[in-house]
Every structure is written in C-alpha cells, then in structure tokens.
C-alpha cells in the first residue's frame, strides 16, 4: 500500500513522520540527533531508503549523516567541506572584503539517478558534490568563481546556498539560489554558471535591478515544466517562463508578497503555494492568521486556504525549506512552523490538520511518496 514519509528538520533534532496513503493517522519517530540543529534531510528519488541529513551545532560544527534503511539507523559520513583553491573574499555586511568560511550545510539535493551522488548547498555560499554517498565532498567552484562571487554579501540569516534544482529532462542544467546574491543556472553540470536575475527588483539594495545582490528565498519548479520557475523573493513572488532568463512578478492579490516558502502541486504545474508573512521585520503571518495561499493560474490570482489552520493569535514563521508536496493521486501539501507544528493537507490544501504540534522550531520539511 502506498504511503508517505515526512522528513522534518528542527532546531533540536530530526523527526520522521509516516502514514499510509490516507494521511490521517501518523507515526512519529524521533528525535534523531537530539539537541543538534538539523537544517535539512532529503531522500534519494531512486532509492527512498537512502536519506541524507545535515546535522550541525554551534559547539561542534558540521556533521553529515546518511541512512540506508529509511531513517531507522544512521551512519556518520564525511564533513570536510574545503573550498577549491584559494577561497578569496566576498563582501561582509559593511561592504568590506571577508574571507570565505564554511559554516554549515543548508540544503541537500540527491541526484535524480544515483543514490550515491548528492549535492550540498552551504554557507558561506558554495555548491559541493559527493559521488560516494557523502564520504567525500568536492566543490563545484565554477559557481563561486564565475565573476560576481566577490560581490556577494550575506543576508540576515547568513550567506547561504539554500536551493538546488536539477532539471529532470537535462541533468546538466541546474539552478541554485543564494541569500543574498540571487539565482544562478548551469548548463554543463556545474562547471560554469550565469546569474539569472533579470526582472528582479529589490528596492532595498543600491541598484534595485542589479545583476546580483537579490535576496532570493526559494525557487521551485514542476518536473513536467522544468523551464518554468517560481520564486519567493524577500519581497515579491516571481515567475520565469524561460528557465530564469527573465522574471516577472505574480504576487497579484496576495495580502503581502513577503515570505519564504513556495512549492508546486505534484500534478498541476500551474498550481502553486506560498505562505505570506507580514514583513521582513515581523516574520509572522498577517493579522495572526496562518494561511496558505494557492494559485491555480501560475500566479497573480490567489486564494486563501485556512480550513484547519489557526486563525487567531498565530505568530509563527514558515522557513524557506519547510514546505513540500507528496505525489499521491490527491496531492498532499505539508509545511512546518517555527512554533513546532507540522501541518498536512491530503487534498491539495483544501483541508489542513496538524500531524504534530509541539516539535522544536521546524527548519525543513521534505516528503517521500512510498510505493
């Protein structure tokens, strides 16, 4: 019987939530790596039992884990992330040059074809790849060295590479996003990169339409339309129909176009989801009402989805990697909050219920659809 496994990274450990295809009753396993920050866990699309996890701590640095049995047991793998060559500098908050320093892994993206290959997006922003199941890591330094790297600067959360998308029809084409440098694309498997930020407008930077410097929070795509990208920027929800060459705003009637997450329905490439957050200085939903917004038209026309979500006194945030969808016939949508709730909707957002209410602050949510 089909089912789902929800991989939840929190400030104090990882949790694995499992259910059958009805998605009504849930088993909760965890905390795994209790007391450690788990920025992200993600399973291999070709071997769902292979899961990678980023475990970190202000005291003990970065640890990498992998499971070969769906998260029942874990094995510590390599944590040596060494920048290629002389790392050089990027801009610091005050505009002065600052040496590149590895801090943590924000996002893991397993290969679409090989369970032993996985990409890691790290802070300070760079892209690493392992082809031996996480034992060793090598930087794809063409990204950092393509020309604008020395002008990248951190956002409030640090200078993190947080989004990695692999085109399922052409694995040499990948997209990544960095806060606060912007979005970038490679056509040759990561050797060379170009910024893809034309059309973004960020009033809070010196040149609002600069080639780089935009605080992109998240990018997503549907596998059937890999040239169509959706972006939640610091402010503005954006869309590109040409693989990122040009972007246009699709915020439309959203109550606020600030937010972090964005995702696409598993079966409807023009149905997208965001969680509007009041502002960058308030980081909670407008009016204390937690609402997912859904557009069935690829943006601009949005409807509020509130059935089952708190509509009073709710002041949580939903962080950039904390929304995911399953691919069951009725698409399930999931998101986690900084208040420790993980909400699930088994009917594409029409009805919501919490799977768990009292976890540590949720950093990331991923879903595996199991056969």
């Amino acid at each position, binding site marked *: 019987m089909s089912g789902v496994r929800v991989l939840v990274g929190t400030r104090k450990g990882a949790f694995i939530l499992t259910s059958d295809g009805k998605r009504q009753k849930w088993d909760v396993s965890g905390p795994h790596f209790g*007391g*450690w920050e788990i920025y992200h866990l993600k399973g291999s699309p070709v071997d769902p039992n292979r899961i990678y996890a980023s475990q970190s*701590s*202000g*005291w*003990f*640095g*970065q*640890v990498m884990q992998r499971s070969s049995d769906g998260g029942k047991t874990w094995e*510590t793998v390599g*944590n*040596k992330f*060494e920048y290629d060559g002389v790392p050089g500098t990027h801009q610091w908050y005050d505009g002065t040059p600052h040496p590149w320093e*590895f801090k943590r892994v924000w996002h893991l993206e397993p290969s679409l074809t090989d369970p032993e290959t996985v990409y890691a997006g790290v802070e300070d922003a760079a892209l690493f790849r392992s082809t031996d199941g996480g034992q060793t890591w090598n930087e794809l330094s063409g990204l950092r060295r393509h020309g604008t790297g020395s002008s990248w600067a951190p956002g409030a959360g640090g200078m993190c590479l947080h989004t990695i998308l692999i085109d399922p029809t052409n694995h040499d084409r990948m997209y990544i996003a960095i806060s606060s440098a912007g979005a970038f694309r490679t056509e040759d498997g990561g050797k060379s990169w170009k910024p893809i930020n034309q059309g973004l407008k960020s009033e809070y930077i010196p040149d609002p339409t600069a080639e780089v410097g935009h605080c992109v929070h998240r990018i997503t795509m549907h596998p059937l339309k890999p040239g169509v990208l959706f972006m939640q920027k610091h402010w503005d929800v954006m869309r590109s129909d040409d693989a990122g060459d040009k972007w246009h705003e699709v915020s439309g009637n959203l109550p606020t176009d600030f937010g972090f997450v964005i995702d696409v329905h598993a079966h409807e490439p023009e149905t997208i989801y965001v969680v509007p957050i009041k502002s960058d200085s308030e980081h909670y939903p407008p009016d204390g009402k937690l609402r997912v917004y859904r557009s069935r038209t690829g943006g601009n026309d949005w409807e509020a989805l509130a059935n089952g979500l708190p509509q009073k006194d709710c002041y949580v945030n939903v962080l950039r990697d904390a929304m995911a969808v399953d691919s069951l016939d009725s698409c399930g949508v999931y998101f986690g909050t900084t208040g420790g709730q993980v909400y699930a909707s088994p009917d594409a957002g029409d009805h919501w219920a919490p799977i768990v209410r009292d976890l540590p602050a949720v950093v990331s949510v991923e879903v595996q659809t199991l056969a």
Partner: protein
Amino acid sequence: MPTIRVVLPQHLQTLAKTYGEVRLDIEGEVTHRAVLDALEIRFPTLRGTMRDPITLRRRPLLRFFACERDLTSESLDTPLPAPVVAATEPFCIIGAIAGG
C-alpha cells in the same frame, strides 16, 4: 605508552557511541594535539567536531579543563599536567555553557 582518561561532552559521547570516561593510549608526549589526534583515530565520527577539519583550529565554544585548571589557551604542543599523564586526573573537554 601512557593511557589517559578523557571526558567528552554528552553530544560527542553520543556521536562516538561511547559512554562515560574514555581511556586513551597516547603515543609519545601527552599534549592537547596528541589527545585530539588519538581521539579522532579511535572515533572517526568525531573528526571535525572538536577542531575545524581544514584549519585544525579548536572550535571556539570548546574548553579543555584538567586538574582544576583551564588549559584551553595553552599551546597545542604543551605537555599536559602530570596527573593527566598518570591518569589520576581526567582531561575534560567541555562545551561552553551558553543559553537561557
């Protein structure tokens, strides 16, 4: 070859799958560096957790205590106190106390 006693912070005990004090054989002179080297050989999962895996600099929020002294700022190659070498006192690796 001296055998010394080492106390690890709880999170590193979990990561290394070891509990309580660790008894560690040290080749040559017993220094901070020798202790960290021996720990990382005995418990490979601890590599990078006590010192940066590239620069080998001590993680800033880790402290080294022994014989009622804070040895954190000592050179990595300074010999550890005789009671540590004789295993009458443990070498303690402590995660700095922080939070609220």
